């Protein structure tokens, strides 16, 4: 009983702090238009932007899923995930973010669809981008909400049922996101990011130095008991070189295309801020993943043979070896990881719909109408996410696993637009994007699943690029005008 009270107290205080910060941001910076509501008026300073980028990137997947992967498959899966997440995400972000920022300032872009629609002068392309991103991100909402519900159930010793936890978190998130928009999300992300990073680092250090005998001893023990986990191809040979490389590239490259990541490239107050954020996000990612790997290695020694429950392994270890106060803090860190992604995804989806669907259908809509629609879309997507938690369809969870590689299908078109490449046409981009999207499902399930040992996401990208070239070659008469390319070039780097 006493344990449960400590848990509720710590968690309650944390939720109250998040709610306070979110509502403070709403009161302090009232949004008067959609740029204010969805982008914080493009005036977010470096500290807040850096943390919101890092916190958004880390989700239920990072906190529970990836750690479970490292526990199960060992270091090769760390290479795959960490390389994808903090090498490629950071590199692609520092490479693309300044250009995205500059074009956004010049032409008022907010989403990737805005860029595609504007550069290629194609509303159809903008709408298709919107549809693909909605399909890629919605299942993610369900994963985050389910993750938080599960954490609360475990942390409270089963006294807080899964569904109650999910509803409570939903209400907190909706309250500050609905009213405060991007600023509320970004401000709460600062606290969430700090709690999340501190929680992951503290859990690893305590496991290694309090329960274990230090880092060398942890790795020596793994080298003795399960050495196959320390080199490629890892446990049961799952991560061989072909699968590793074909997994890393599309998964890593896909994240920046997601609406909640893309809009952050526009939100910085200056170009310097846009350039700086990837470096900081890299640092935070490095801490979280590195210490996560340490925890996974320790869990291999402390709780061996739990491959079937790998996703829960950190919580199981903390619950077994640490006092309840620490369990509550780790659960708060986990909830921070999930909530900070969930609120950003809600806002990202609302942004996507208001710009790539509503804005295209009703270009003359007033400022107030757009603002009201944005608010209601946040509410609607939150509700959809909550419904999905209860319906819990298996198909959606599976689609969630492909979230990044569905997103990456939009990347070729986006990069070509950012670089003002004229040879490729809107038809090529459109056909490639749709075919790549379908290709992920064709090579993700059934008899062709990961054909030739190549990950489905890479197959999607290969089909996408091939059709992009072929269709563009066949439709050279529909290239972007030279004038359009010149105006884009003038924006510079």
């Amino acid at each position, binding site marked *: 009983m006493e344990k449960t009270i400590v848990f509720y107290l710590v968690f309650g205080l944390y939720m109250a702090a998040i709610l306070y910060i979110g509502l403070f941001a709403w009161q302090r910076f009232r949004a008067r238009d959609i740029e204010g509501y969805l982008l914080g008026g493009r005036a977010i300073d470096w500290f807040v932007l850096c943390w919101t980028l890092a916190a958004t990137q880390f989700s239920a997947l990072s906190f529970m899923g990836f750690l479970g992967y490292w526990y199960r498959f060992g*270091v090769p899966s*760390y*290479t795959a995930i*960490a*390389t994808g997440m*903090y*090498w490629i995400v*950071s*590199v692609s972000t*520092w*490479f693309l973010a300044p250009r995205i920022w500059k074009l956004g300032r010049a032409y008022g872009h907010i989403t990737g669809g805005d860029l595609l629609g504007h550069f290629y002068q194609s509303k159809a392309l903008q709408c298709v981008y919107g549809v693909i991103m909605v399909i890629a991100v919605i299942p993610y909402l369900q994963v985050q909400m389910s993750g938080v519900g599960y954490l609360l159930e475990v942390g409270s010793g089963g006294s807080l049922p899964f569904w109650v936890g999910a509803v409570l978190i939903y209400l907190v998130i909706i309250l500050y996101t609905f009213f405060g928009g991007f600023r509320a999300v970004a401000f709460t992300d600062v606290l969430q990011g700090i709690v999340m990073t501190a929680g992951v680092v503290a859990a690893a250090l305590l496991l290694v130095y309090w329960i274990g005998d*230090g*880092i*060398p001893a942890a*790795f*020596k023990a793994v*080298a003795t008991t399960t*050495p196959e986990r*320390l*080199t*490629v191809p890892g446990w049961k040979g799952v991560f061989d*070189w072909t699968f*590793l*490389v074909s997994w*890393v590239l599309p998964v890593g490259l896909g994240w920046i295309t997601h609406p909640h990541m893309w809009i952050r490239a526009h939100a910085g107050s200056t170009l*310097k801020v846009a*350039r*700086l954020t*990837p*470096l900081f996000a*890299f*640092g935070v990612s*490095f801490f979280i993943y*590195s210490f996560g*790997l340490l925890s996974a290695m320790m869990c291999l020694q402390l709780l061996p043979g739990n491959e079937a429950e790998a996703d829960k392994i950190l919580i199981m270890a903390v619950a077994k070896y640490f006092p309840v106060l620490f369990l509550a803090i780790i659960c708060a860190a986990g909830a921070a990881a999930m909530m900070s992604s969930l609120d950003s995804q809600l806002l990202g989806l609302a942004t996507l719909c208001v710009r790539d669907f509503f804005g295209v259908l009703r270009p003359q809509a007033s400022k107030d109408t757009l603002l009201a629609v944005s608010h209601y879309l946040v509410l609607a997507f939150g509700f959809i996410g909550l419904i999905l938690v209860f319906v819990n369809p298996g198909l959606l969870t599976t689609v969630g696993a492909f979230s990044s590689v569905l997103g990456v299908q939009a990347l070729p078109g986006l990069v070509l637009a950012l670089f003002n490449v004229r040879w490729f046409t809107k038809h090529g981009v459109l056909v490639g994007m749709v075919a790549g999207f379908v290709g992920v499902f064709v090579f993700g399930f059934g008899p062709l699943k990961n054909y030739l040992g190549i990950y489905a996401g890479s197959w999607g990208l290969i089909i996408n690029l091939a059709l992009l070239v072929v269709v563009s070659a066949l439709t050279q008469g529909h290239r972007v005008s030279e004038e359009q390319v010149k105006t884009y070039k*003038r924006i*510079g*780097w």
Partner: protein
Amino acid sequence: MGEHQLLFNEKAKKRVMYHLFVALILFFIFVWPVAKLFNRIEPFVLGVPLYVFMEWILGPFLVFLNILAYLLWFERADKTETEGSKKEA
């Protein structure tokens, strides 16, 4: 936009490409195919297996340096640009 600004843009573009190339080289070294050469447990370096050391410590450190070098170049270029504009004025 003056000529000076356009020149700066070209310089910036080249610099971005250079650092992107370095990032690609690092990818080939630490992910594939060069990584096959150090895909071993022994020897332990700084208390961790060789492959883990390369993937967990050395690789990220070099990627970090690459991004840092890129940012510092822009920082310096921005300063030069600002000073140049002041002199022209």
